[in-house]
């Protein structure tokens, strides 16, 4: 099916995310206004106005009531999705690089950058049921020593926080004590994205080292490797099929202006178990910065450096495609 092109941002996309129900698509970009769209038809519901810098990351609660955004204007904001009103603002010392709601939405984390003499820090804050009660209290601050963190997510049952770093390491932290639990340097260059599976037992990490790995959450052992010829900016897992999608491309600064052919701005499908490439979808005319799968697995979206979001509804023959060696009956249903 033809993708739906959403052109509501003036600058390159930094993060797109579906809500749990999948009816809404949230997008953040280097312009100051995160947007929310109907994922089915691409109609824009509204924007969240208030940031004064690049919005690096956003996350939405499971009930789609609140949106959390982190920005380079040294703030992290909580919004009411329905009204688009900013209900709380955390002032930080440096730019906010990553945000994430914990399971149960009773707390959240945001990561601040290591600039201007400050160290990269994980801030864990409580989220009050009523935003009126929200205070600037911080449950825990974890100072990251070593390479700065670029991405962060909550691990299984909020027992851990998983961060990806600029030097390619993945680290697990204890959110209560702030202790480093485990660390593994699987990638050679900066980690660009980490996305967990629905049951949080494994995650996809993508990196500038032109590869994406499927890693076990408990052991941080790499289970599957997907290697390309370009930096990978985002990698996602299909919720219903054993497939992964990698997005990336030549860095914007290295792109040749003469031809699109050599730059490979494609969404690339791989089989998660056999590691074979099974397909590509092209269309962006800049690198893909962020990818998100619809929770029902029937569609996915990509946000590019070119400022477009492309919502792809997958065709039936994609769902008919199957290796003879695959037997889905063997897989447990969560």
């Amino acid at each position, binding site marked *: 099916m033809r993708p739906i092109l959403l052109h509501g941002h003036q600058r390159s996309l930094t993060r797109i995310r579906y809500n749990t129900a999948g009816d809404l698509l949230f997008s953040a970009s280097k312009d100051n206004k995160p947007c929310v769209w109907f994922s089915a038809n691409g109609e824009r519901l509204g924007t969240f106005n208030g940031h004064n810098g690049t919005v690096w990351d956003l996350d939405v609660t499971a009930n789609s009531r609140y949106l959390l955004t982190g920005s380079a204007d040294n703030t992290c904001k909580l919004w009411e999705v329905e009204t688009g009103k900013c209900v709380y603002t955390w002032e930080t010392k440096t730019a906010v690089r990553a945000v994430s709601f914990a*399971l*149960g939405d*009773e707390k959240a984390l945001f990561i601040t950058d290591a600039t201007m003499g400050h160290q990269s820090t994980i801030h864990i804050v409580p989220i009050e049921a009523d935003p009126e009660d929200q205070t600037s209290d911080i449950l825990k601050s974890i100072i990251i020593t070593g390479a700065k963190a670029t991405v962060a997510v909550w691990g*299984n*049952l*909020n027992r851990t926080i998983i961060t990806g770093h600029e030097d390619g390491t993945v680290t697990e932290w204890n959110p209560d004590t702030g202790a480093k639990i485990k660390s593994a340097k699987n990638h050679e260059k900066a980690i660009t994205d980490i996305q967990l599976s629905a*049951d949080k*037992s*494994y995650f996809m990490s993508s990196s500038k080292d032109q590869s994406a790995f499927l890693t*076990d959450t408990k052991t941080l052992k790499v*289970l599957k490797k997907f290697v390309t*010829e370009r930096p990978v900016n985002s990698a996602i897992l299909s919720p219903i099929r*054993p497939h992964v999608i990698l997005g990336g491309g*030549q860095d914007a600064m290295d792109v*040749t202006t003469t*031809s699109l*052919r*050599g730059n490979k701005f494609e969404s690339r499908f791989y089989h998660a*178990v*056999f590691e074979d490439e099974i397909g590509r979808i092209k269309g962006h005319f800049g690198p893909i910065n962020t990818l998100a799968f619809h929770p029902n697995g029937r569609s996915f979206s990509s946000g590019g450096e070119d400022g477009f979001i492309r919502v792809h509804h997958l065709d039936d023959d994609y769902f008919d495609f199957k*290796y*003879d*060696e*695959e*037997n889905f009956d*063997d*897989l*447990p249903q*969560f």
Partner: protein
Amino acid sequence: MPSSKKEVEIDESQIDFSDIYAHFSVPAPSKFDTVIVVDGAPLVGVDKEVKLINKIKSLFKNIGGIKNAEMPMDPETGKSKGYLFIEFETPAQASAAILACNNFKLDITHTLSVNAFDDIESFANVPETYAPPVIEPFTEKPHLRSWLKDEQARDQFVLMKGEDTAIHWNNKSEAPDLVHSRKHWSDMYVAWSPKGSYLATFHKQGIALWGGPEFEKIARFAHANVKLIDFSPDEKYLVTWSHDPLLMPTGEHHHIIVWDILSGRQLRSFPVSASAMEKQDLGKAAPTIAGPGATVKIDWPFFKWSYDSKYIARITPGPDGAISVYETPGMGLLDKKSIKIENVKAFEWSPTENVISYWTPEPEVGNIPARVTLMKLPQREIVRTKNLFNVVNAQLAWQSAGKYLLVRVERSTSKTQRSHNLEIFRMKEKDVPVDVVELKPTENVTGVFWEPNGDRFALIGLEGTAKINIHFYEMNAVAAAAPPAGKKNGPAVSAILGGAKLLKTLDRKGINQVVWSPKGRIAVLAGVRAFQGDIEFWDIDDLTMLAAGDHYTCTDLEWDPTGRYLMSSVSWWRVQQDPGFTLWSCVGTELAKQSIPMFKQILWRPRPPTPLTIEEQKSVKKNFKEISKQFDIVDAKENTKLDKAVVEKRRGLWSEWVSYRRRCYEDWLKESDLRNEILGIDGTSDSRTQEIEEYVDEVIEEIEEVVPDNEYD
């Protein structure tokens, strides 16, 4: 303060320092290295002593620096002894004097022999007892053609990436098998010898040749900073070129060395004129000098080998133009003199006989036409000449079997207009008739490509700035027409011959090369280097396109020596983005594609010509179906084996994955209470689905009607 060390008394005279003296001994400089001995001078009396000395001295006046000249006289006879000692200021002057005047004919009866004084000394001190030369023990050389014995008749290729250089077997679409690999094997690029026996690697110190099943070092040729090499066709000799000059005793700077490969000896070295060094690389030799060598601005090969390696020739352009032909192995000039050809522009050897072709342009003054000449060597017999007019440029292209010589002629029709035509010499016909093919006047020919051993050629023509036409021509068989009446041995006129037939013209964008399969028939059209990397496979027998593909930014294309595969590659030396190679079957199916960081070079190992006789080759062709059957069986077996392996591997991966997911599921179940607690859901009910009943009333239309009261009345 008491010393802990014991005072030891040493008598220095008791210590043997001889080993240290021997180690650090400085060879005493010979005091006589500025002295030469001139022998063979006439015997003269005292009266003519001064005159003769002055005469001899005048011989060396060009060198200068004579300090002293001494002529011993025999007191008994009162005459000179017939030799003189001359002392120079520097050893260099002395050695120059030896070179200049040794064997100088003073007059009919007296020939001077000039030697260094030290040489005479050392010859005088030859030991009396004969010491037999040490015979080196025989070491067995590795089998240089072992790779040809591969049961599946696979071909090898050498691949350079990053610091690694490795030789692999080509396994079609499967991963290639490694034969041998080394780190830092070559400082620059690598090259195969023409028959594949040796692999040449480039080093700061010189060239090394490797061969045999384990790629042992076979030979070394010391030539500092060597950049370019050229093997003789029979792999007996090697020509090397370095930008760093080699200072000869004569004071000349030599850049080129010719080597004998088996003995490792230097046969001769040559200077290269400055103008030739600055000459732009015309792209002729470009495919062989990939990599760092490509930056060298020299017309390579500078020396051109004859087909049988018997001669090697080079050209001196300009008004004093000449072609110098040297004979191997002595490397002496053929008949002791160059072939003088005024203004000669270019020459080429025939690939199958000792005939050279060359052309001379029209001089600016005088009514002499431009001329293409064919000359047989060593007889220096002119086989054929053809005069041409208004020639701006010409290029010589031999068909690989030496059957045709195609001369691409660019003429000026007016001051700004150029036209192109082809003059094709039929070498195997009597009197070498010439066919003329006229081309569209607006078309600029950029390349001519002969089908190997065939009668067809492809031509790339550029019309305007963007329109590219690819023409395929076929040489017609010679018609058995009698020479026209009236003319006895009428030199052949193209009209009575077949000429060349235009088979097909293709209008293509982005094509700048035609690469014929070494077995002919299949031609690959490609746009490489500056172009995008389009690749088209054409069957010229049927004139149909077999397949079209592309290898983006492709820099190099090479057929394997058997014509079964084509390798297209992107070298990191030229394009830093996505270097790697793609293997194509001869009909254009993509068999394998590899993207390798820092991939630099891939070269098929050439094969020597087949040892089968023509009859045997014919019988193979005749029984092709029978023979190919057995290979089909092997192929089928191999394929099913591979398929099975793939299926097995996938099954294994899948079952591994299933068991992993089951373990995850068990953990997930164990944690479900905790999870529900965090989510605040009552665990006893089905936590994952929540049923919400929603009733939607849709009002389609609302109509208000006033019912008249009287209706029910």
